C-alpha cells in the first residue's frame, strides 16, 4: 500500500463498524466454557504442592478414593505419552513425579461426579515431602553455590546482543548515566478464569473446548501427552473472557489435565479454576532486575547503551526464552544507538512459572531505558522531549540488532501528536520549580515493538484461512487466530467484506477450531490482524477474481477493472454499469463456479542470528509513546493519574474504534502495573492471591485517556496494518513514573510505585539535605 492510502477508497475497512460479538457479550448470552455441559460429564480438581521445593516422600489417595462420588485419582504414572507440557524446553512436567519446584505445582488429578466433591477429595489426597532449600529470587539463583533447580546454572536462557564497541565508548564518553531497576509480577486478571472441557469420542479421538489464545499449542500438547496422532485431536475455542497472554501458554496444562482425565475415564471432564487457584498456579508477568547505562556526547547524541537484563522465570521455563528475547532486542529503546551491549538472562526460582503477558518483556525493559533517558536529559540539562527527538528512530536508523529501519516508522509523528494533545508545552516545568502539597507533573515514555513473532518464532509466523461464499451471498470464514475480546473477528470480517465486495454484516467468522485451517501459530505478538488478515485477503482475493470475471460477463464487457461499494459491483471506467452483489453470487452458483478458497500467508523472512545477536529481528515495527499527567500528594505520597495520552503508529487502523478500545484497555492495565498491582510471594508462598489483596485499577481510578492513532502503512500488511495488541501496555507505566519525577523530583527505580516507595525516596532526599 502506498502512503496516499485514504479510507475513502474503502467501503468496509477503516470504518468503526460495531463488533460482531457485541450483542451476545452485552446481553450475557455468550457461551463461556463453564456454560458447556455434556452427558455423564465428570469434574476434575488438581492436587497441588504445599511446599515451594521438595522431594515427594509419599503419595496416598486411598482416603480420597473412598469418598462417595470420586471416580479416580490420576498421577504422572497414568500419562500414556510424555509427562511434559511441550513449550520450548519441555522442563515442565504435566504432573509432578518425584519432586516439586513451586508451591501450587500440579501433582495429581481427582475426577468426581461434582466439582464440589472433586475439590473436597483433592484436599484429602495425602502427600508428604522432604523439604529442600528454596530459591526466592534471581540474585540467589545466579550465585555459584546456589541450589540447582534447572541445569547446572539455573539459567533457562541467555542472549547477548553486541553491536559496535560499547565498553570502549563508555570509557571516553562525555556523559554517562546508569541505573538499577526492579519490576514486580503482574497478574493477567482476566475476568474468566482458566477452564477446559475434554470430550472423548467413540472413534478414539478427543475434542477439547475451552478458554484459550492458542488452539494449536494445545493441539500439540494433547498429541504429546496422550501419544495419539495429530488427526485424532480437535481443539475448539469457546468465547474467551480475557486473555492478555495468560491464555497463551498455560492453558496447555489445563487442557492436557482435562484430556488425560477424559481419555482415562472415557467420560467428558470439565476443569474450571477458582480465582485463587488461577492466581497460584497460572503464569504471571516476569519480575525483572535491570542494570542499564547510556553514554552520550555533550549535545545529547546517545553513543552507547549497555543493559544487563534479568528475568525471574519461576520454577519452569514455559515461554521465558522468547519473552526474554523480545525484551532483549528492544532493551536499548527506540533510539538510533551505534554501540550496544545487551546481556539477557532468565533464571529459575522456586516460584510460580512466569510466561506470556501483553508486552512480553518490553514493559520491564522500557521502564529501565525510558527512566534512564529522563535521567540522561537531567544530566545533559535538556528537556526529555528534546533528548528523545535527537535520538529517536527514523527511516534509516538501526536497531540494537543492526536492523536498518527502511520504511513505516511513525515515531516522530507519534511523539509530536502526543506532545500536542497532552498540552506538554503548557504543563511542563522542571521539578525544582514545582511547589505546594499537591504537585502536577508530566512525563513521557516511548517504545518500538516488533510485530509478530519475528526471529523469536520464525517458523510459526504463518497463517491459514478458509473463506466460503454461501448461495445467498453471506460468507463463512475460518481462521487460525482466536477472538479474545480484541475484536479480530470483526476486523477479519471487514477485510473479507472489502475484498469480496459484500456488506460487512454478511460475514460470519466461525469459532476457531484446529480442524478447519492448518496450524496458524499462536494468537499473540499483536500478529492476528497482520497474519490472519493477510490469509483472508489471500483467500477472498482468489474468490474475487472469479466474481470479477462473472461481473464482466453479466455486464457484457470483455475487460475492465471491477470495483465494489459493498452492495454493487461496477465498472471503474463506467460506474453506471453495475450489478448487485447477490445477483453475481447467484449467477456464479448457477454456473457451478466455486466461491470457496483457502488462503495462506507467511511473514517476510528475518535474519537475526542467535550466535551473533545481530540481524533483522522482525519484519516491521509499531511505534508508540505515552504522555502521563499526574498529581502527587507530597505529604501522603499518593499519586493520582489525571490524563494519559497514548499514541501509536499501527500502519492502518482497520477499525478505529476497536483500536481506541485496545489503547484504552492497555493503558489501564499499565496504570495498574505502575501504581497498585503488587503480588507478594514470600518464601515461595503467594500471600495475596485474590482481588481483595491484589488491586487492579477500579473505574474510579481511570483518568482521561486520549488515544492517538498514526498511520505509516506497512507495505505487506493488510491495507497497510501492522499490530496494536501489546504496545498500549508498554509505555504508560514508565510515563507515569517519569511524571511523578517531574512533579516531585522523586525518581523511582521500582514498579509498582506505591506510596511506601515514594515515602522511602522522600525520606532519603530529606536525609541528603
Amino acid at each position: 500500500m502506498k502512503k496516499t492510502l485514504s479510507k475513502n477508497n474503502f467501503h468496509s475497512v477503516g470504518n468503526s463498524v460495531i463488533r460482531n460479538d457485541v450483542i451476545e457479550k452485552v446481553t450475557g448470552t455468550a457461551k463461556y466454557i463453564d456454560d458447556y455441559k455434556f452427558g455423564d460429564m465428570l469434574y476434575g480438581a488438581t492436587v497441588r504442592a504445599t511446599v515451594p521445593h521438595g522431594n515427594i516422600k509419599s503419595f496416598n489417595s486411598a482416603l480420597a478414593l473412598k469418598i462417595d462420588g470420586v471416580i479416580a485419582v490420576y498421577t504422572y504414572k497414568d500419562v500414556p505419552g510424555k509427562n511434559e507440557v511441550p513449550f520450548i524446553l519441555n522442563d515442565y512436567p504435566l504432573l509432578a513425579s518425584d519432586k516439586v519446584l513451586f508451591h501450587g505445582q500440579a501433582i495429581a488429578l481427582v475426577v468426581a461426579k461434582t466439582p464440589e466433591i472433586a475439590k473436597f477429595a483433592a484436599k484429602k489426597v495425602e502427600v508428604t515431602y522432604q523439604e529442600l532449600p528454596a530459591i526466592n529470587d534471581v540474585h540467589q539463583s545466579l550465585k555459584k553455590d546456589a541450589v540447582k533447580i534447572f541445569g547446572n546454572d539455573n539459567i533457562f536462557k541467555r542472549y547477548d546482543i553486541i553491536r559496535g564497541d560499547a565498553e570502549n565508548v563508555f570509557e571516553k564518553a562525555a556523559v554517562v548515566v546508569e541505573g538499577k531497576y526492579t519490576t514486580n509480577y503482574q497478574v493477567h486478571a482476566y475476568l474468566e478464569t482458566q477452564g477446559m472441557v475434554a470430550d472423548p469420542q467413540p472413534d478414539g479421538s478427543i475434542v477439547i473446548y475451552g478458554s484459550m489464545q492458542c488452539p494449536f499449542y494445545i493441539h500439540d500438547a494433547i498429541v504429546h501427552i496422550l501419544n495419539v496422532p495429530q488427526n485424532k485431536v480437535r481443539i475448539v475455542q469457546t468465547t474467551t473472557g480475557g486473555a492478555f497472554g495468560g491464555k497463551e501458554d498455560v492453558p496447555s496444562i489445563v487442557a492436557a489435565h482435562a484430556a488425560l482425565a477424559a481419555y482415562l475415564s472415557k467420560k467428558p471432564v470439565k476443569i474450571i479454576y477458582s480465582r485463587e487457584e488461577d492466581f497460584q498456579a497460572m503464569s504471571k508477568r516476569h519480575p525483572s532486575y535491570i542494570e542499564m547505562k547510556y553514554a552520550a556526547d555533550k549535545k545529547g547524541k546517545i553513543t552507547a547503551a549497555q543493559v544487563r537484563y534479568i528475568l525471574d522465570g519461576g520454577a519452569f521455563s514455559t515461554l521465558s526464552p522468547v519473552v526474554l528475547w523480545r525484551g532483549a532486542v528492544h532493551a536499548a529503546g527506540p533510539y538510533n544507538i551505534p554501540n550496544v551491549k545487551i546481556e539477557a538472562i532468565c533464571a529459575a526460582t522456586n516460584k510460580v512459572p512466569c510466561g506470556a503477558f501483553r508486552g512480553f518483556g518490553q514493559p520491564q525493559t522500557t521502564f529501565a531505558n525510558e527512566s534512564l533517558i529522563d535521567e540522561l536529559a537531567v544530566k545533559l540539562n535538556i528537556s526529555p522531549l528534546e533528548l528523545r527527538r535527537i535520538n529517536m528512530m527514523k527511516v534509516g536508523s538501526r536497531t540494537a540488532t543492526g536492523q536498518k529501519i527502511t520504511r513505516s516508522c511513525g515515531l516522530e509523528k507519534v511523539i509530536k501528536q502526543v506532545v500536542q494533545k497532552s498540552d506538554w508545552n503548557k504543563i511542563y516545568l522542571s521539578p525544582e520549580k514545582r511547589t505546594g502539597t499537591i504537585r502536577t507533573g508530566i512525563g513521557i515514555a516511548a517504545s518500538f515493538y516488533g510485530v509478530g513473532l519475528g526471529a523469536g518464532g520464525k517458523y510459526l509466523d504463518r497463517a491459514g484461512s478458509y473463506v466460503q461464499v454461501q448461495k445467498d451471498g453471506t460468507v463463512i470464514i475460518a481462521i487460525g487466530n482466536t477472538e479474545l475480546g480484541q475484536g479480530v473477528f470483526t476486523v477479519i470480517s471487514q477485510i473479507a467484506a472489502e475484498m469480496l465486495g459484500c456488506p460487512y454484516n454478511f460475514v460470519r467468522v466461525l469459532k476457531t477450531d484446529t480442524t478447519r485451517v492448518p496450524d496458524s501459530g499462536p494468537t499473540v505478538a499483536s500478529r492476528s490482524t497482520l497474519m490472519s488478515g493477510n490469509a483472508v485477503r489471500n483467500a477472498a482475493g482468489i474468490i474475487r477474481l472469479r466474481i470479477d470475471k462473472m461481473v464482466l460477463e453479466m455486464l457484457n464487457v470483455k475487460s475492465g477493472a471491477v470495483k465494489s461499494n459493498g452492495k454493487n459491483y461496477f465498472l471503474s471506467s463506467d460506474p453506471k454499469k453495475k450489478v448487485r452483489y447477490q445477483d453475481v453470487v447467484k449467477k456464479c452458483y448457477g454456473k457451478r463456479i466455486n466461491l470457496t478458497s483457502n488462503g495462506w500467508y507467511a511473514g517476510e523472512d528475518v535474519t537475526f542470528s542467535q550466535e551473533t545477536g545481530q540481524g533483522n529481528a522482525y519484519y516491521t515495527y509499531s511505534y508508540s509513546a505515552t504522555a502521563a499527567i499526574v498529581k502527587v500528594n507530597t505529604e501522603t505520597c499518593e499519586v493520582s493519574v489525571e490524563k494519559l495520552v497514548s499514541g501509536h503508529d499501527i500502519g492502518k487502523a482497520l477499525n478505529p474504534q476497536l483500536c481506541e478500545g485496545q489503547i484504552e484497555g492497555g493503558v489501564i492495565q499499565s496504570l495498574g502495573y505502575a501504581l497498585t498491582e503488587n503480588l507478594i510471594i514470600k518464601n515461595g508462598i503467594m500471600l495475596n492471591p485474590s482481588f481483595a489483596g491484589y488491586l487492579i485499577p477500579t473505574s474510579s481510578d481511570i483518568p482521561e485517556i486520549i488515544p492517538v492513532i498514526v498511520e505509516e502503512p506497512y507495505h505487506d500488511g493488510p491495507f497497510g496494518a501492522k499490530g496494536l495488541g501489546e504496545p498500549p501496555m508498554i509505555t504508560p507505566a514508565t510515563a507515569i513514573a517519569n511524571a511523578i519525577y517531574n512533579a516531585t523530583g522523586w525518581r523511582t527505580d521500582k514498579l509498582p510505585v506505591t506510596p511506601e516507595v515514594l515515602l522511602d525516596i522522600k525520606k532519603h532526599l530529606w536525609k541528603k539535605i
Partner: protein
Amino acid sequence: MFSRFDYYAPQTLNDAFAALSKNGNARILAGGTDLVVNIRSGKIKPSLIVDLKKIKWLSGVTKTDRGIEIGPLTTMNELAESSLLKGPYSLLSYAAKIMGCYEIRNRATVGGNIINASPGAETLTPLTVLHASVEVSGNNNKKLIPLNKFVTGPNNTVLSGGEIVTKIILPFYPQLTAGYYMRRARVKGMDLASVNCSVLVVNPNNIEKCQVRAAFGTVMPTPYRSQKAEEILSGKKITLDLIKQAASVINSEINPRATSLRATPEYKRFMVEYFLKTGLSKILGVTF
C-alpha cells in the same frame, strides 16, 4: 467451596436465641459480606446459619432519651443516608458512605462490621471516638458494653455464642461538636482501608472545654486511642507543634504489625501526624 449448613430465619429474637442455644456451631447472618466470604474460603464451617433479617426492629436509626440508637442490621447505605447522623455524627455516615462499593453497602451492616472487628473496619474508629456502647442481649439478659471493651482483637469481641447485639448507642453531644474520618486505600474504588483514623473535637469553640479524641485503625489489633496524646491536644489552642508532639507520643505507643499487605508499619506511622493534622484542620477550619 461451601460446606453444608442449615439455614434459619427467625421472626423474633426469642426464636433466634432458641436456635442459637440448640446449636453450638451456629453463626449469625446479618449482611453476609464477611460471613459468606469466610464460609467460601473455608475459614469457618458453621452447621447452622441464623439469618436475623426478618427481625425488622433490629435495623434503623432512631433518636431516644439515651441518645442516637442504631439497630445492628442497619446497612452502610442506610447509615450514609440517615438524617439523624449529622453534625457530631457525620463522620460515621461518611465512613459508611465510602466503605466497599455501593452493592456491598446495600448489604453490609454496622453490627456485622463491628462484630467482624477487622482492624481497619470502616465504622470502628468513628464509633470509638463517639463513645458508642453496644447493647448485648442474651436469652434472659441485656447489658451495655462500651465499644472499646466490646472489641478485644482482630475478628474478636466479648460476644459469646448465644448472644446477639441488639443496639449501638451513641451519646448526645454539645452543638458544634464535629468529627472527621480519613483513610488511605490503594485504589480510589473498592478497597479495604490500609490505615484509617477518626478525629472528634467536642466543644471546638470553647478552648477550655475543648476535648480532642483520635482513634486509629490498623496500627494496633483494635482501634487505638492515646490518652496522653489526647491530653496534649485537649483544652488548649492547637498548634502544629502540639500535633507533632501528640503524633510522636502515639508513635511511641503503637506497634503496627509488619505482616500487613496493605501498608507498611513505616507508612502507617508516617500517616499518624498527617491524619491528626488533616482531621483537626478540617474540623477547626484552620491550616497548620
